[in-house]
């Protein structure tokens, strides 16, 4: 029977779907899928969650809540880390291909869990080209911050405007590199010690409106 070569056969698809169901239920410690007494419209849930997240205080003057909700959303991406040298920590972010819409980035913040081992630590953040420093790629300095031991814990670092160009391109992989004058192994140990200390990036984005073409006759 001719079939799409890239599509799994019916039985294989059913098997994979069963495996996916079983895996999700096991990990969520559920015996069976929850049955909802009253179906909640997805749009209402999305609206409620966005309202909760935005909070009244953050709304800019002149923009109604409804308008703001339709304008943008937030991407949170967790990093895969690698220690390229004792003083350089690589952070690799992968973005889903499903997000292939034409988007504009409004804000981007990197969150790091840091425990400053000495009196102070000077941390520099670079945007690295594909392949990172190992591949001899170019790097752009995004920011430099001096941290003291009092600043141990979760810290955020604003990244704009440099990554804007990244989101405009075709690549779905973003690489940042952290560098310090001293040794970054203590910082890396913190990151690797627990999944709850995994660095992440929060990007507020907006879907670009399609351009209006005016034809002149």
């Amino acid at each position, binding site marked *: 029977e001719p079939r799409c*070569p890239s599509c*799994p056969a019916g039985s294989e698809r059913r098997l*994979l*779907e069963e*495996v*996916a*169901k079983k*895996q*999700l239920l096991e*990990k*969520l410690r*559920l015996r069976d*899928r*929850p*049955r*909802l*007494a*009253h*179906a*909640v419209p*997805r749009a209402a*849930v*999305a609206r409620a*969650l966005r309202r909760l997240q935005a909070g009244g205080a953050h709304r800019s003057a002149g923009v109604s809540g409804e308008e703001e909700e339709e304008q943008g959303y937030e991407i*949170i991406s*967790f990093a*895969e880390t690698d220690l390229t040298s004792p003083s350089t920590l690589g952070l690799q972010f992968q973005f889903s291909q*499903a997000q292939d819409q034409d988007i504009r980035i409004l804000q981007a913040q990197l969150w790091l869990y840091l425990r400053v081992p000495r009196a102070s630590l000077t941390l520099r953040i670079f945007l690295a080209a594909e392949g990172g420093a190992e591949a001899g790629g170019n790097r752009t300095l995004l920011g430099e911050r001096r941290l003291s031991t009092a600043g141990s814990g979760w810290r955020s670092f604003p990244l704009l405007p440099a990554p804007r160009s990244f989101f405009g391109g075709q690549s779905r992989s973003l690489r940042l590199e952290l560098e310090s004058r001293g040794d970054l192994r203590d910082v890396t140990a913190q990151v690797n010690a627990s*999944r709850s200390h995994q660095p992440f990036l929060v990007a507020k984005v907006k879907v670009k409106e399609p351009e209006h073409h005016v034809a002149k006759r």
Partner: protein
Amino acid sequence: SLRCSHNSNLCCRKDYYVDFRDIGWNDWIIKPEGYQINYCVGQCPLHVAGSPGMASSFHTAVFNLVKANNVQASGHSCCVPTRRRPLSILYFDRNSNIVKTDIPDMIVDACGCS
């Protein structure tokens, strides 16, 4: 790590996406809209055994050939996940509360021979 293709039967990562709408779970799982259930499949010949992520350089390849020539087939090598990543999920529990949780090691990112 290889992604599966029709040209090779070596250990590779096969990608499959389960859309929650297809299994009727989109009423209780708010986000994401589906689950990328990748898995590992393929053969692990002796010369790639014990090298998760496959032969990454010329030196690794030579080392693995030497190893394959010296070690007789004493055990089996399996094509297994070598890198995974977590899945964040937002869902309704049985009391209709909205729960957000991060499940570690849910998505297979790379495969290799054990």
